[in-house]
C-alpha cells in the first residue's frame, strides 16, 4: 500500500489546521454559510436531513487493518458506532457534529487518511478495480496511476472550482470491475499491437438525471502522459463547462453539446501544448510509487481446488460461499475473498465498529493486513491462502459476515435514501431490506446466479440504478413513494443503461415484482450459463413487462372526475 512520506503528512496536517481555522471563521460569523459550504464540502462534510455527514476517502478502495481500526474508533467516538461504505469506495459517518470534524480529520491524518475533496466541485476520490494488483486477468496494477492522479488532483489550485464534481476511475484489467465507462474520466489499460501497456481514455460517462455511457476520447495513451492528458481534459471542461445550471454542468453535457469529435479536437490541441511539460511522469517518481505496491512475499503453494470442492460438498453453506464470494487470485494457492455487507434485512454497506475491528483482525490473520472496499459496498480480503478459506469462512460466519451472495440478487447497491439524504424522494434502504429478506434462501440465489440490483432513492442515482441489471428508482408522486423498475443496465466492459419497465410500484409490491422477473428469467434462459443480462439482451422487455404487470399491461391511470360545484 501507499505510505505517506513527510510531504504527504505535512500537507494533510496543514489541511486539517486550515479547516479548523475555517470552522472557527464560520462559527464567528466571518464566513457565511454560502461561503463556508464549498469549503466544508471539499473537506467531506455534508449537511443531511438530520445531521452532518462526513465522507472519508478510501483512496482507490485500499485500506490497511490499522486504518480500519481507526475507522472503528471514529465510529465509536464521534458517531453512533457504525459507518457506511459507499459506491465510491469511501466510508460515510452519518451523525457527526460540526465542532468535532477537525478532530476527526486529525485522527484520520494520524493513520494517513483524509476527507479532502470527497465532495465539492472538484476531482473526487480516484476509484479503481477492487482486485487491483491481485486479479488474474490484470495487465498491470493500476494503483500507481491512481496514486499519481490522487496527488495531482488533491488541492489542485486550478481545478478546485470546477463547474461540477469530477470522478475518475481506473482499471488495469480487461474485465471492468470499476465501471470506468460511467465516470467523467475512465482509464482502461490494455496492450497495444506492439504489446505495450497504455490507457484507453473514456470521457463524459456518468449517471444522475442524465445517464450517459462515456465515449472514447483517445484510443491509447502511454502511461507517462496520463496526467497531462487528464489536465487537458480538465482544463477544457473548466473553461467551457456550463455554470448556469447545476443539472447541466457535468462534463457529459459539454461533451454531448460539442460532440465527442469537437471535444477531442480541443483536448488534443491543449494536450500538445503541455504533454512534455512538468506533468510528464518521471521514471523515478513512478518507480518510487510503484515500490509501495509491490506484492507481498507469497509462499509457494498449490491450488486447493479439489480439497475445497470436497469441503464444499460436506458443508454446502461453505460451498455456496466459495462459489459466490471467492475469486481467482493471480498467485497459485491464494484467493481473493469478498466479505458481503448485505446480510438479509441489513442496511447495504453498513458496518459496526465492533465488526470493523474484527475484520481488521482477520485481515492481519489471513493476509498482510490489507483490505479493499469495492464499489458495490462490500469488502475484500486480497491475499487469503486457499488452505485457510474454511477457517476464515467459519470466523466470518461467527461475525454474521459470511453471507454468500456476492454478485447475486441480494447483493444490492442502495443509496442512503430518504432515511438520511436531503435530496432523496423515497426511502431506498427499506426496499433493499425487503428484497434481502425475500431472497434470503441461498439455494435460490445460487440457482439464479449473477444478477445485480441497484436502488436509488431519487433521480440523482447515487444507488446506480441505471446500471443495475435490475434498477429500482424511488420517486415521489403526490407525497407517496413509488418505485420504478429498469432492466438491462450494466456497468462492466459492456456497459449499458437500463430500460424502464413501466409505471412505479408501491414499496410493498417491489419484492414480488422482482421475484416474478427472476422466475421469468429462470423459465426462459438458455441454460444456467446464460446470465439474466444476456437473457434480457436476447429476449427484450416484453416478456418481463408482462411478468410485472400481467398480460393486460400496467393499469391505466385513473383520472379523477371533476366535481361540478
Amino acid at each position, binding site marked *: 500500500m501507499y505510505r505517506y*512520506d513527510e*510531504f*504527504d503528512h*505535512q*500537507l494533510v496536517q*496543514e*489541511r486539517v*489546521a*486550515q479547516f479548523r*481555522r*475555517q470552522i472557527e471563521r464560520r462559527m464567528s460569523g466571518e*464566513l457565511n454559510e454560502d*461561503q463556508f459550504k*464549498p*469549503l466544508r464540502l471539499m473537506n467531506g462534510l455534508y449537511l443531511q436531513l438530520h445531521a452532518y455527514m462526513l465522507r472519508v476517502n478510501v483512496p482507490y478502495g485500499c485500506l490497511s487493518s490499522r486504518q480500519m481500526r481507526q475507522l472503528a474508533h471514529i465510529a465509536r467516538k464521534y458517531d453512533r458506532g457504525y459507518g457506511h461504505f459507499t459506491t465510491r469506495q469511501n466510508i460515510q459517518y452519518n451523525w457527526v457534529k460540526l465542532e468535532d470534524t477537525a478532530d476527526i480529520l486529525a485522527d484520520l491524518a494520524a493513520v494517513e487518511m483524509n476527507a479532502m475533496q470527497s465532495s465539492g*466541485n472538484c476531482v473526487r476520490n480516484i476509484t479503481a478495480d477492487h482486485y487491483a494488483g491481485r486479479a488474474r486477468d490484470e495487465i498491470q496494477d493500476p494503483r500507481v496511476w491512481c496514486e499519481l492522479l490522487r*496527488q*495531482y488532483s*488533491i*488541492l*489542485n*489550485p*486550478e*481545478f*478546485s*472550482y*470546477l*463547474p461540477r464534481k469530477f470522478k475518475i476511475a481506473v482499471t488495469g484489467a480487461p474485465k471492468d470491475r470499476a465501471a470506468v465507462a460511467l465516470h467523467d474520466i475512465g482509464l482502461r489499460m490494455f496492450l497495444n499491437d506492439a504489446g505495450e501497456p497504455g490507457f484507453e481514455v473514456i470521457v463524459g460517462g456518468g449517471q444522475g438525471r442524465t445517464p450517459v455511457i462515456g465515449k472514447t476520447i483517445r484510443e491509447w495513451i502511454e502511461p507517462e502522459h496520463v496526467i497531462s492528458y487528464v489536465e487537458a481534459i480538465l*482544463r477544457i471542461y*473548466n*473553461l467551457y463547462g456550463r*455554470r448556469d445550471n447545476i443539472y447541466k454542468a457535468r462534463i457529459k453535457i459539454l461533451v454531448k453539446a460539442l460532440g465527442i469529435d469537437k471535444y477531442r479536437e480541443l483536448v488534443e490541441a491543449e494536450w500538445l*501544448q503541455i504533454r512534455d511539460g*512538468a*506533468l510528464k511522469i*518521471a521514471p*523515478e*517518481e513512478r518507480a*518510487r510509487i510503484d515500490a509501495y505496491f509491490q506484492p507481498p512475499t507469497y509462499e509457494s503453494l498449490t491450488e486447493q481446488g479439489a480439497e475445497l470442492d470436497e469441503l464444499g460438498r460436506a458443508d454446502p453453506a461453505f460451498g455456496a460461499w466459495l462459489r459466490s464470494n471467492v475469486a481467482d487470485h493471480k498467485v497459485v494457492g491464494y484467493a481473493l475473498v469478498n466479505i458481503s455487507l448485505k446480510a438479509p434485512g441489513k442496511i447495504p454497506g453498513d458496518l459496526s465498529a465492533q465488526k470493523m475491528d474484527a475484520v481488521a483482525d482477520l485481515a492481519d490473520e489471513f493476509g498482510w493486513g490489507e483490505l479493499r472496499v469495492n464499489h458495490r459496498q462490500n469488502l475484500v480480503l486480497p491475499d487469503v491462502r486457499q488452505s485457510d478459506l474454511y477457517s476464515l469462512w467459519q470466523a466470518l460466519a461467527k461475525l454474521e459476515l459470511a453471507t454468500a451472495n456476492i454478485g447475486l440478487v441480494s447483493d444490492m447497491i442502495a443509496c442512503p435514501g430518504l432515511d438520511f439524504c436531503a435530496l432523496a424522494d423515497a426511502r431506498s434502504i427499506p426496499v433493499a431490506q425487503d428484497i434481502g429478506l425475500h431472497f434470503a434462501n441461498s439455494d435460490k440465489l445460487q440457482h439464479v446466479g449473477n444478477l445485480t440490483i441497484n436502488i436509488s432513492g431519487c433521480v440523482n442515482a447515487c444507488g446506480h440504478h441505471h446500471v443495475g441489471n435490475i434498477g429500482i428508482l424511488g420517486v415521489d408522486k403526490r407525497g407517496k413513494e413509488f418505485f420504478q423498475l429498469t432492466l438491462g443496465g450494466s456497468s462492466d466492459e459492456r456497459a449499458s443503461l437500463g430500460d424502464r419497465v413501466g409505471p412505479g410500484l408501491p414499496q410493498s409490491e417491489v419484492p414480488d415484482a422482482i421475484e416474478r422477473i427472476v422466475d421469468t428469467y429462470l423459465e426462459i434462459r438458455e441454460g444456467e450459463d446464460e446470465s439474466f443480462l444476456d437473457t434480457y439482451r436476447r429476449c427484450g422487455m416484453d416478456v418481463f413487462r408482462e411478468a410485472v404487470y400481467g398480460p393486460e399491461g400496467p393499469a391505466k391511470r385513473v383520472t379523477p372526475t371533476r366535481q361540478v360545484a
Partner: protein
Amino acid sequence: MSTLIKDKKLIEDPFIRIGVDDAIPAKGAVLVPLTTWQDHWEKLLRRGEPVGVWLKSDEHPEIIADDLDNLQLIALEFPTFRDGRGYSYARLVRERYGFEGELRAIGDVLLEQLHYMERVGFNAFEVDSKDALADLAIADRDFSVWYQPSADDRASSAQLRTELKRNG
C-alpha cells in the same frame, strides 16, 4: 470597502477603472474593458500611459494574447467565487502567453481562494476585507507543500522528492 494588494503590499490603485461607456481620460493609467481595448487600442497606446484590460469570466484571454507586450495589467473577474474559469485563464496568461506584468483578481475574491489564486499566477488581488494583508498572511501560512507544479515558482512535492534523492 475593497482594497488592493499587489506583490503582498497594500497599494493605492494607480489605474483608473473605465466602464464600457466611459470616455478615456486624457491622463493617467487606465484599466479598460475588452471592447474598449479592441475598439480604441491605438488611441490608448498613443497616450503613452500604462494600460490594463479587464476580462469577464467568459472572455478568454487568448483574445488579447498577441497584445500582452503592450499591456501592464490584466485583471480577471470572478463574478462569484464559485466560477473557477479565472484559475485556468491565469495559468494560460502566465505560462502560455508569457505575461510578466500585473495579473489581478477582481470581483468576488475571498480569503479562502487567495492561496489558489497565487499558485496559478495572480500577484494582485482586489479584496473586500477589513484587513486584506492579514487575510493574505493567513492564506500564505496555510500550506508549505504542494503536489502540483503550477504557475508560481513553488516546487511540487514530486520535484522536492527527486531533489532530496539526488542530494542523498
